[in-house]
């Protein structure tokens, strides 16, 4: 049995264990233990993966396992990972672990909260290990639906509206996706062999170009909705703003990455000709995402909205980089996914913690928090600096790689798009520094805040976990970059082979 199965089994067992707990204290301890095990597993997986590569195993996917599920339709439960999936799994494990501690004080229906949260995580882990499009789609939907309850029950503000909007838009996306997946399936055996949902098998056949043109938009937009592709991003600000802390973390940090991951692993990898032909449309859209998201963030006064728009911008950059279709840019895209996942999770965790103390998220009602809650404020500044791309932190590594890669295209269209996208860095600096200035520096605006206490141990644990990862990637980027690069090779060569 492959070790990867444990990534689904452990969360499911955790869910069952939570069912037997008595109160919220039991539930959170069990969740923490379960997700702690998951984090250790992820760490072990990284080393095991690197060991395999070190002894010279060059299979595209490792730790594979394949069980025939529905023989008639040739549906398998097929799992396996490459370097990209491994790093995404590690990201998920870190964010979920931090998320459990960030929601340490949920006491309204706590058991149900942790069960939904961990079910969501199960879906995400399952998605990243899947090699079969059927199981991938199954896990994808499992990851989306608990969101409705998480936002609807434990959210704030117009939570019912946001929850419904988010669920319907994401399910609409998966509707497009389903059509695309069925298209891939029925063209997976042009010479009359058995049809298949297996990604590696489909990658071996050549799907007729006119069919690729038909299905590529379905797949790319279907995943793109989750990746906040303009103009399908509108669920994101409302959803994130209404969601409880851990859910925002997980959603912006990990779930939106499902979109980016699916875009290249399924849409671009399996339909390379159409990807090359249609890239320009989506480059325009993603460039708009990047700039629009950044501008959107400037006008907002609600901390969560600021971060939600900034996520639109950063996730737009992921798709932008993927569409540049060269090794450097795509490497940057994966780095950006991980870096943004950690960063935005940290932001949402901090916002949740600040809101828990001040009971407002409006930046103009707060000020001078540095004096009263120094730990949280300092971490906020570091997260902000990572977000605007300060060297030494993860954001710099990712964005630098992306833009270097993007600029390798000599033609005017790519150059122009790149330059416009780069301008977002400046805008990012504006909104990050503005928030830091108003929120953290200056005199304490509201004297009640003088009584606030700084971070507790679980809040420190949650933030430091994320912070260590961010700084780690910033200082030792080659370690992660090499893991990714090895696995990018086959994908990029397939994309370039058809030009």
């Amino acid at each position: 049995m492959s070790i990867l199965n444990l990534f689904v089994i452990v969360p499911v067992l955790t869910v069952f264990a939570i069912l037997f707990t008595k109160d919220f204290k039991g539930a959170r301890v069990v969740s923490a233990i379960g997700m702690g095990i998951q984090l250790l597993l992820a760490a072990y997986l990284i080393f095991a993966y690197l060991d395999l590569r070190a002894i010279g195993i060059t299979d595209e996917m490792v730790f594979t396992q394949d069980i025939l599920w529905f023989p008639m339709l040739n549906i398998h439960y097929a799992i396996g990972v490459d370097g990209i999936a491994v790093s995404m799994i590690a990201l998920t494990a870190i964010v979920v672990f931090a998320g459990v501690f960030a929601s340490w004080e949920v006491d309204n229906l706590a058991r149900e909260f942790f069960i939904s949260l961990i079910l969501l995580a199960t879906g995400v882990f399952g998605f990243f290990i899947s090699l079969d499009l059927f199981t991938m789609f199954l896990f994808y939907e499992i990851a989306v639906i608990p969101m409705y309850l998480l936002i609807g029950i434990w959210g704030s503000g117009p939570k019912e509206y946001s929850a419904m909007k988010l669920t319907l838009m994401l399910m609409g996306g998966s509707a497009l996706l389903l059509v695309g997946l069925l298209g891939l399936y029925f063209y997976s055996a042009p010479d009359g062999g058995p049809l298949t949902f297996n990604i590696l098998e489909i990658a071996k056949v050549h799907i007729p170009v006119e069919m690729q043109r038909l299905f590529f938009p379905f797949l790319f937009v279907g995943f793109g909705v989750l990746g906040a592709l303009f103009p399908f991003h509108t669920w994101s600000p409302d959803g994130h703003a209404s969601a409880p802390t851990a859910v925002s973390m997980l959603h912006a940090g990990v779930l939106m990455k499902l979109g980016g991951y699916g875009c290249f692993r399924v849409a671009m990898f399996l339909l390379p000709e159409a990807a090359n032909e249609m890239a320009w449309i989506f480059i325009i859209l993603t460039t708009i995402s990047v700039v629009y998201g950044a501008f959107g963030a400037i006008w907002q006064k609600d901390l969560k909205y600021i971060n939600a728009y900034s996520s639109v911008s950063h996730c737009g950059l992921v798709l932008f980089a993927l569409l540049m279709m060269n090794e450097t840019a795509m490497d940057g895209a994966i780095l950006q996914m991980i870096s943004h996942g950690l960063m935005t999770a940290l932001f949402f965790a901090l916002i949740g913690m600040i809101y828990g103390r001040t009971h407002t998220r409006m930046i103009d009602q707060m000020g001078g928090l540095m004096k009263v809650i120094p730990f949280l404020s300092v971490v906020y500044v570091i997260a902000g600096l990572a977000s605007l791309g300060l060297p030494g932190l993860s954001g710099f590594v990712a964005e630098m790689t992306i833009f270097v890669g993007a600029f390798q295209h000599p033609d005017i269209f790519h150059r122009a798009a790149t330059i416009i996208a780069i301008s977002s860095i400046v805008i990012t600096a504006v909104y990050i520094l503005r928030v830091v200035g108003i929120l953290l520096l200056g005199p304490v605006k509201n004297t009640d805040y003088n009584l606030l206490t700084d971070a507790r141990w679980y809040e420190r644990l949650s933030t430091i976990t994320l912070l260590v990862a961010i700084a780690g990637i910033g200082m030792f980027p080659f370690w992660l970059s090499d893991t990714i690069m090895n696995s990018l090779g086959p994908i990029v060569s397939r994309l370039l082979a058809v030009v």
Partner: protein
Amino acid sequence: MRHEVLLLAVIILILLMEIFVGKANRKAIIPVSIGLFLLSTLAGFLPAESGQLFGDMYRTNGLIVSMKNILNIGVLIVMLLSAEWLRKEENLDKVSEYYLIMLSTLVGMFYMISSGDFLMFYLGLELASIPMAALAAYDKFRNSSAEAGIKFIFSSALSSGVLLYGLSMIYASTGSIYFTEVAAHMGEQPLQVLGFIFFLAGMGFKISLVPFHFWTADVYEGAPISVTSYLSVISKGAAIFIFSIVLFSVFPMLEPLWQELLYVLAILTMTLANLFAVRQNNIKRFLAFSSIAQAGFILLGIMGGPHLGLTTVVYFILVYVFTNLGAFGVAISISDKTGKENINDYNGLYKTNPMLSLTMMLALFSLAGIPPVAGFFGKFFLFTSAASKGYYILVLIAVLNATISLYYYLRVVKAMFIEKSDHPIAPFRSSLSTRMALALCVAGTFAVGFISWIYEYLYDMTYLLFIF
């Protein structure tokens, strides 16, 4: 024949009980009837042979036996669910009538599914629908129930008339009523096509496809809720079974025509039913429109052809039996205890009755096609079936409709889990039979999806459809 004979034996035994059981012991009829029916259900799973009787008027094979078993399981669940309601004082003197009528319609459905010619088909169909009106009017002192009975008998008579007219045209042009001979002489002559269209319209009433669905919501709302569950799952399931069998075995020549017609009907049915379902407040009307929409999805399955398509449809009905009866079961249980049948009444249900709410949520998610429950697999295979013929646009419309349907299913989830209520439904414990039925539904909803051999078995069986 075993299914029919056993069922007739059960009916006769219940009749005898009705005669010999005194006033004091009438409650005992309920468990005994359920027990007898359980035995006949179990006996239905024993291995059976394929074959035909009465000069090919009656046929049976593995697939048909599976269909009957699915219906049996569904009826068993309905019987368990209605036990608590029947035990009420006002129903106690007509308990056995309920079982007699219900099982007679089931016999009708069995003969209908097994029919090898249009005469047997029509007899079965009438036996399945005329007593149903009595069942719908079971609460005869409640106006809406009596109204439901009348509406049902009128619409059923009309649709049977339309259907019979179509059959007479087919007989006129082919000279036979036997399925095999009709299939051999079927062409595209205008009279034959016209006959087929009348047949399709008649069946459209029975399956309640848009635009033949107008009776559905009123009848479902007026009838006692246990009867509604029977109508929406068992009766509809049986009609879909025979409809798909007839399409594949009698009208394969007209396949291009009925593919086009089903294409349009599927779109109309899904879309309109969804739009109406969004606005409903009564849980019975809500489930009525939801079940119309599900029928639209099932048409997608039929379009996949005699093997992939038929397998998918039978499999989906199996899923649908567990799923929809799960949703109805919760509604029945709440209606029995409190008499409340509106979605607003469910506000805050999770706080007071968590198990019921979770069962309902599971059933609704399964209806909406959310993994990991069986509804996801059922829907996925329906879409696969339609896509196998290249109907990608239709699949797109269908999945978008599935998204719309998620909206109204989530409305109920929202009421139960998110809304707060000043007067929530008080905590209560359902009767043993209801809990058993719901447990069966939940188990089925989880298991049917993951156990792939059910699907494989049905697929193998579809190859027997034309061998007798």
